[in-house]
């Protein structure tokens, strides 16, 4: 069988500078400005475009068109966003490459059968990327540069056959070449309108006149020349900081950023065939030190719905000491987790339900508030049990007369006319049981235990010290 032909999907992010700052879909108008003494609009979000604001306009003029927020471009945020997205894309293909400054290349030819065809994979990527807060342009072509050219022309083409590439490529404008301004002007000076015009000219002459680079670009785009790409190496751990467009005062407003981080994380985990058990969130404040909180899971997961639910429970309980400027998510430990969902295995649906339940409780009440109950072979009543992880098996019981309730601490009883009192004088039933022990760990006891009943009919487990003051205590309730 022939290996599937290479097929390149270029994912272009024309609005990346805005989206990296979380401004892409904000309801208010926002623009990025060039800064300097004559600041101009670099680009505006949808709301800004609706006001009639266009790139190149003076920001002063833009202000006159409506209420507007002006932000400064942050290239490091753009780079971080692109890298995070590249790691996320690893779930669709083993080969992702950065196409700076605002695009990614994915070799999808080998993934088609796995994802159910070209339309399905394109749809999955588009929906996933949109959920992360980006408005992508997707084009598919048999060559990487071909795909990039279509994206630059804002054409969402899907071409799979190298032989049919030349026609559509020829109709693209010259700007997609991405050559220097001087070269571009010279080409226009020759009377060329699109790549087709260029391709009709003699190749050697063009190379002599404009240098080998321009010719090579078209050769690579058409698949006449190899075009090796550098694979993107995803980091070993997940760490991402998301700057919030505005300072956030309540946890509810964090939900959106948190959801985006979780989606990035789960894509990253899927790409690595892994899940995680521990998520550490950091809240970056203006003046205070960063505060953190953790989300611990019983079983590794990479299900965004499940993690989102747990996070929401956790966020509802969180008090913010100060407004938040950025949200951070760190995952250090990845646990191998194959693609089979637990829920598909027989009997596993109930198990998954049970684990999800435990995790919801732990997220809200804390891990130490969700425990199992275990037995310890120790004579001392207070040492004969312990709190263990839920579901853990422990020692066997000696099955002697014991009350169903044990008091956290034995409570001393008042004695009247020689009889201990507990809502009335206690009447001892049956013979006592002497319990001694504990000399080995420094907490020795020596007691005579009795079952006792008060006038109301309540039955208690009481003891009298064998040594010292010979005081009476109640230690349990036979309920």
């Amino acid at each position, binding site marked *: 069988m022939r290996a599937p032909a290479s097929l390149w999907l270029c994912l272009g992010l024309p609005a990346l500078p805005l989206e990296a700052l979380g401004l892409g879909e904000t309801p208010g108008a926002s623009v990025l400005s060039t800064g300097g003494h004559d600041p101009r609009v670099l680009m505006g979000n949808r709301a800004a475009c609706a006001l009639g604001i266009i790139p190149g306009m003076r920001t002063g003029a833009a202000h006159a068109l409506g209420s507007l927020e002006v932000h400064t471009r942050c290239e490091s945020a753009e780079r971080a966003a692109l890298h995070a997205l590249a790691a996320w894309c690893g779930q669709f293909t083993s080969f992702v490459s950065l196409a700076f400054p605002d695009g990614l290349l994915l070799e999808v030819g080998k993934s088609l059968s796995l994802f159910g065809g070209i339309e399905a994979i394109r749809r999955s990527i588009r929906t996933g990327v949109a959920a992360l807060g980006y408005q992508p342009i997707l084009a598919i072509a048999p060559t990487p540069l071909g795909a990039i050219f279509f994206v630059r022309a804002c054409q969402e083409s899907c071409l799979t056959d190298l032989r049919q590439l030349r026609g559509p490529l020829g109709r693209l404008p010259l700007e997609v070449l991405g050559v220097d301004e001087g070269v571009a002007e010279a080409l226009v000076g020759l009377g060329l309108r699109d790549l087709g015009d260029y391709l009709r000219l003699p190749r050697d002459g063009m190379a002599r006149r404009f240098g080998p680079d321009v010719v090579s670009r078209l050769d690579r785009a058409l698949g006449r020349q190899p075009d090796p790409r550098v694979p993107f190496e995803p980091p070993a751990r997940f760490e991402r900081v998301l700057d919030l467009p505005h300072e956030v005062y309540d946890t509810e407003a964090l939900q959106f950023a948190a959801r985006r981080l979780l989606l990035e994380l789960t894509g990253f985990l899927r790409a690595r065939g892994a899940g995680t058990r521990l998520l550490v969130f950091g809240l970056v404040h203006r003046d205070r030190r960063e505060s953190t909180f953790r989300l611990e899971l019983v079983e590794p997961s990479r299900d965004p719905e499940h993690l989102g639910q747990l996070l929401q429970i956790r966020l509802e309980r969180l008090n913010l000491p100060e407004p938040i400027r950025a949200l951070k998510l760190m995952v250090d430990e990845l646990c191998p987790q194959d693609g089979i969902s637990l829920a598909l295995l027989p*009997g596993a649906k*109930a*198990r998954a*339900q*049970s684990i*999800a*339940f*435990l995790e*919801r*409780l732990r997220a*809200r*009440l804390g891990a130490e*508030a*969700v*425990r*199992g*109950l*275990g*037995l310890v072979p120790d004579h001392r*009543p207070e040492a*004969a*049990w312990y*709190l263990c992880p*839920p*579901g*853990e*098996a*422990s020692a*066997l*019981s*000696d*099955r*002697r*007369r*014991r*009350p*169903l*309730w*044990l*008091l*956290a601490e034995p409570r001393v009883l008042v004695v009247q006319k020689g009889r201990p009192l507990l*809502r009335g004088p206690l009447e001892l039933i*049956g013979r006592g049981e002497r319990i001694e022990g504990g000399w080995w760990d420094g907490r020795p006891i020596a007691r005579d235990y009795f*079952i006792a*009943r*008060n006038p*109301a*009919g*309540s*039955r*208690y487990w009481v003891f009298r010290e064998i040594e010292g003051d010979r005081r009476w205590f109640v230690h*349990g*309730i*036979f*309920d």
Partner: protein
Amino acid sequence: MGLETVLRDPRVWRFGEVPATGTETVPTGFAELDALLPGRGWPVGALTEILAECEGIGVLRLVMPALARLCRSERWLAWIAPPHIPYAPALAAHGVDLTRVLMIGPVEGPAERFWAVEQSLRAGACSAVLAWLPHADWRGLRRLQLAAEAGQSCGLVFRPLAAHREASPAALRLVLEPSGSRTAVRIIKCRSGAGAKPLTLDLPGPDL
């Protein structure tokens, strides 16, 4: 709608007899008590309220046989913020499989407690949920009743005797009182059930 149809509706009470209901139940382990209960046991997927004034008269022993039976499923027996420590050796002696026991707590305040109870009832991951709710109101209990239905869980709510004066949406309400060395059980409400015939039970004592 014919009369027969109306009478078969589980919401209709028929005095003096205990018709079998469609709801699932778990035997209480006490034949005399089962005989008085619709479905011959504790209702599953519903709330049962157990009211008692004093401790130490057998409230827990009353539910132990059912808990031991419910442990045979894979689901949890959730104890939510109990007033004392459920003593593991005694639970094991009553036949409870400790690996199914889930201790939830401490919880901060009534709202947190209520949340944990509702979650546990609704999750479908607990065969029984034991909760101590001295101050629950009708609306809160109604939510818990619905949660128990959704999660097919046996909700056991322990409350002081004074609560019997308040209306309750629980499917079953019992009052426990000491009666010599035995315990008197009075059914004050049950779905499509019998009248309030009091019953005195010998609960397995400490000498089991």
